[in-house]
């Protein structure tokens, strides 16, 4: 076990990337992800990290360069946020379609317009269907640990898919937290050198990214989805082996005081910390309230979510993103699909909070639970409710 230190979470992610001995980093700095790649550039410049640091003119080029380095068998990392992720959009599908196990950190941030440099999860929610493994950290320690795990998951011969570690912009990326880094020796023993399954090699000519005529496109898409669905077992396996080696356990779904809860709050990311305090206070006041945080977003943990939430009377889903003109929040709509096959299912109420860097407070969770109690009494009145909006 490593020494406990105080470290900015962005820099903890950089440390994990360094310990993973990446071969290539191609990135374009954008708030609030900048510290991650700045630190990596510094490590390369100082000779602490033996990697190619490729400077590019945009995020589209960053992801293109990552596809190139991953295709020749290099362990590849990048990081981005918001507009940068949006600019990567078409290349994100190419990375997964070409089965290139790139690891990317996203410091989640709101999308323009209006221009906002502050945190929410609209950026990654707009990229839900890119075919990457996607997970969310709540704490600095988790950001460090999951970044390491991402490499092992992405590169597993049963997976071979790019993987995203999401950290909430500012509320997680820019805070200094106490955490334990691991030694290079221990990480080396746990994370083997990357052995690519398919690789561009002049000695063995291969066409990567050919045309997929209608006769084969469907089969290749099926192949890709089966790899993503199948990555679920590998994620569990990697997290178990991480626990064995480093002593910290991770699961796709994290429950807190939810066993006998009538109303369960479901969310992802760093606001879980505030939600936990709110749950504790409401429990003290005799309310049967619990919390379920979804850590693994893709592949979606259907069975675990049904187990964790199926017994509640109501689930109050808190999204930091909005599906305009749709059912409210993306996490809520996913959960409704997940619970729909159950005979007896909880009411799922959708709440939008924390957009564009607005704080989600303990009082907000009180409001959310009170609104959900109303929904239980009177049924749905709205597809979703926006918390704290001035009307």
């Amino acid at each position, binding site marked *: 076990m490593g020494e406990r230190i105080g470290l900015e979470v962005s820099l903890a992610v950089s440390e994990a990337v360094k310990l993973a001995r990446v071969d290539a980093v191609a990135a374009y700095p954008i708030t609030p992800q900048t510290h991650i790649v700045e630190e990596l550039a510094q490590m390369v410049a100082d000779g602490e990290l033996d990697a190619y640091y490729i400077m590019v003119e945009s995020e589209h080029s960053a992801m293109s360069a990552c596809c190139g380095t991953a295709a020749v068998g290099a362990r590849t990392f990048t990081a981005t946020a918001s507009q940068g992720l949006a600019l990567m959009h078409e290349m994100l599908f190419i990375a997964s379609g070409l089965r290139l196990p790139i690891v990317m950190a996203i410091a989640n941030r709101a999308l323009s317009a209006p221009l906002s440099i502050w945190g929410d999860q609209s950026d990654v929610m707009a990229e839900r269907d890119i075919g990457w493994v996607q997970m969310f950290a709540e704490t600095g320690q988790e950001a460090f640990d999951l970044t390491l795990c991402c490499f092992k998951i992405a590169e597993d011969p049963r997976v*071979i898919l790019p993987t995203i570690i999401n950290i909430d912009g500012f509320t997680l990326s820019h805070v200094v937290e106490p955490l334990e880094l691991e030694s290079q020796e221990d990480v080396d023993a746990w994370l083997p050198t990357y052995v690519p399954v*398919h690789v561009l090699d002049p000695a063995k000519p291969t066409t990567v990214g050919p045309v*997929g005529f209608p006769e084969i496109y469907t089969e290749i898409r099926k*192949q890709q989805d089966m790899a993503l669905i199948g990555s679920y077992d590998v994620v569990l396996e990697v997290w178990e082996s991480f626990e064995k080696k480093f002593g910290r356990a991770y699961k796709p779904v994290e429950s807190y005081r939810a066993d006998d809860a009538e109303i369960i709050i479901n969310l992802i990311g760093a606001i879980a910390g505030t939600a936990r305090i709110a749950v504790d206070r409401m429990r003290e006041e005799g309310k049967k309230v619990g919390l379920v945080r979804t850590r693994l977003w893709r592949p979606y943990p259907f069975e675990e979510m049904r187990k964790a939430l199926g017994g509640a009377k109501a689930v109050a889903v808190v999204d930091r993103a909005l599906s305009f003109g749709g059912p409210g929040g993306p996490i809520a709509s996913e959960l409704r699909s997940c619970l729909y096959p159950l005979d007896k299912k909880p009411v799922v109420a959708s709440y939008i909070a924390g957009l564009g860097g607005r704080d989600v407070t303990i009082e907000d969770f009180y409001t959310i639970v009170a609104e959900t109690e109303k929904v239980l009494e009177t049924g749905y009145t709205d597809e979703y409710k926006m918390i704290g909006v001035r009307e």
Partner: protein
Amino acid sequence: MPTWKEYPIAATIHEPGSATGQNTGDWRSERPQRDNEKCDKCGICWIFCPDAALFMNEDGFYEVDLYHCKGCGICARECGKEAIIMVEESE
């Protein structure tokens, strides 16, 4: 036809030049036609052809590989001798 399990990962192709077996000429609506009286065998059509669908015959003229020519007309446009015209595919 192979099932999804039988294709190489990400549809990668391990046989170089396999596209030569793909008939892309059937997209064509016009075909290039050469006038041997005007042609001086300079090869500019061969240089410009984006589909490598021209090849030199025994007499030094550049013939069209109609299996791969998409009828873009670049050869006709670039020819300095106006020796190539595009004619409509009638069949």
